[in-house]
């Protein structure tokens, strides 16, 4: 009897806890119940993408003829950029990526890879 009572009490507490937690996580921010009531900062444009500038710095002493092919991929292996690079000149190019993108993958011509964190809107591959 005592054991049944304890189990029942625990079950009720667990259910109450779950219910409370769920109520908290699905509640909307204070004072914002509809899209119309969103109070975004001035200038916020609701864009779901961001443009980052990818650059490869020119390598002094590198041969002048284009010879290196580079790739930039996202975490799902989508090739966002495939570009033939002249190492002596380098390059700079804008790239549109989802706003939530935290890192990209740089792949050199030899297949070697380097993960690059996107801390701002400009990344340098070398």
């Amino acid at each position, binding site marked *: 009897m005592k054991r049944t009572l304890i189990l029942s009490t625990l079950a009720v507490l667990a259910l109450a806890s779950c219910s409370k937690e769920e109520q908290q996580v699905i509640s909307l921010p204070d004072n914002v119940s*509809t*899209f119309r009531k969103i109070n975004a900062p001035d200038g916020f444009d609701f864009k779901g993408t961001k443009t980052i500038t990818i650059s490869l710095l020119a390598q002094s002493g590198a041969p002048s003829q284009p*010879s*290196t092919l580079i790739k930039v991929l996202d975490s799902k292996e989508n090739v*966002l*950029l*495939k570009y*033939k690079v002249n190492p002596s000149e380098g390059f700079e190019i804008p790239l549109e990526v*989802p706003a939530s993108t935290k890192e990209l993958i740089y792949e050199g011509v*030899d297949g070697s890879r380097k993960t690059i964190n996107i801390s701002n809107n400009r990344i340098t591959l070398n």
Partner: protein
Amino acid sequence: MKTLIKYALVIVSIISAHNSNAQLQFDFTNSTNLARHSGFPWGNTNVLSNSDPGCFISGTTYGAYYDANKDGLIPGSSGYYAIFWTPIVAVQGSYTATVEYTATGNFDIWSTIYNVANGSTGNAQVTQLGAAATKTVATIYINGATSGNFRQYVNVRNAGASNVTIHSITLTSATYTPPVSGCSVPTGPSCTDADSDGICDNLDDYPNDPAKAFSSTIPWMNWMYEDLFPAYGDFDFNDLVVSAEREAITDADNDLRFLKIKAVVMAAGAGSAQGWAVELKGINPGEVLSVSGSSLTDNVMIMGSNGTENGQTNAVIPVFDNFHSVINSAGGPFFNTKPSVPKGTGDTITIMIEFSKNSALVLGDLDYNFFSFRTDERGLEIHEMGYSPTDLADMTLFGTKQDASDVNSGDYYVSVDGLPWAMSSAGTAYPTEKTDMLESFLKLATWAQSGGALFQDWHTNTLDAAYRNAAKIY
């Protein structure tokens, strides 16, 4: 057979069809062309930089010997090492070295590079390899970004005990020019380049089309619209939902030659028919050679012969002019917004835009401005916030009803409350009919009110209850 093996060894070919730029590829099985020097040539700069630049070099003791019976190089008299240096090659950026070997047991290959200009060595690496009863190809060294003239050092350890035989070696992305005199190691074949555009087939995304070489893709995204602009609607952002993928195709010169857009109407919870198009800002219509694949059924736009809309400063390309023509509705006026109505499908529309080579456009010139427009009222365009209308938009709509666009400053499609009529995202979900976006996506308000700093994954995170209310998502 040996020739076939040689070709199979090519992992990454350099971009050249000229023999002077051929990669070094040497099959030891048909040559004893190995210069031998007394002592151990490590650090002997005279030998390494000046002597027999076109030869493989090995020592008399700690060297490697050719054995016809074993079809390749075997350890020197030490019985432990098989050491050799490649001929001098010109390295252009990164390169790859591979060996073809057989072995009865495990062994290590120690490798490094020797810079013949300054005598420096570096980037040492140890590669552990296992037994291989048949000829097996392994990458032994991948260099960092370097350029100059180098010899590649190869030191096979435990070669004797494991009965290692090195059959061939290939250096790719490193050019090799046979010397005029002295040893002459044959060069490897130039790569296969079916379309003769200068890009080897294994690097060419379109090996049979000289106008296309490299593909860069922006994966599928969704564009979601409220269609009552300039008035507010119900904020379910499903009056038109289009998913699209963009593939930019450049040629061997990195010139932008094609743009392929694949699009599917995912939802259309609207009473009024709409079209969808893209303006390529900064690209003149005359720089477009042709457009194929647009779905044009209602004569909404007056088109030029190249498939762009007439009367525009920038190239405007319609994807479809009436969503009804590109969907297969299963019933009811609302397409894929009411769970109670059977789900329909959207056609995959593939647009191919060809740009003029003479325009010398590059990837960075692509500046997309997607927009919806009313099928029965061409000028009623809806763009994402901050994007400008096209030349054919009805400018009298700005500043009316809830719109607060500032024509002078160029702040378009922003409401009096700072809200948009269109949004794009890498997410694919959208609300059910007449469900406010905030009821479906629980972090959207926080994301917006933080200026985009928080919950950037408000739309892509599929965690139910925390990020979204699945019951209110179609």
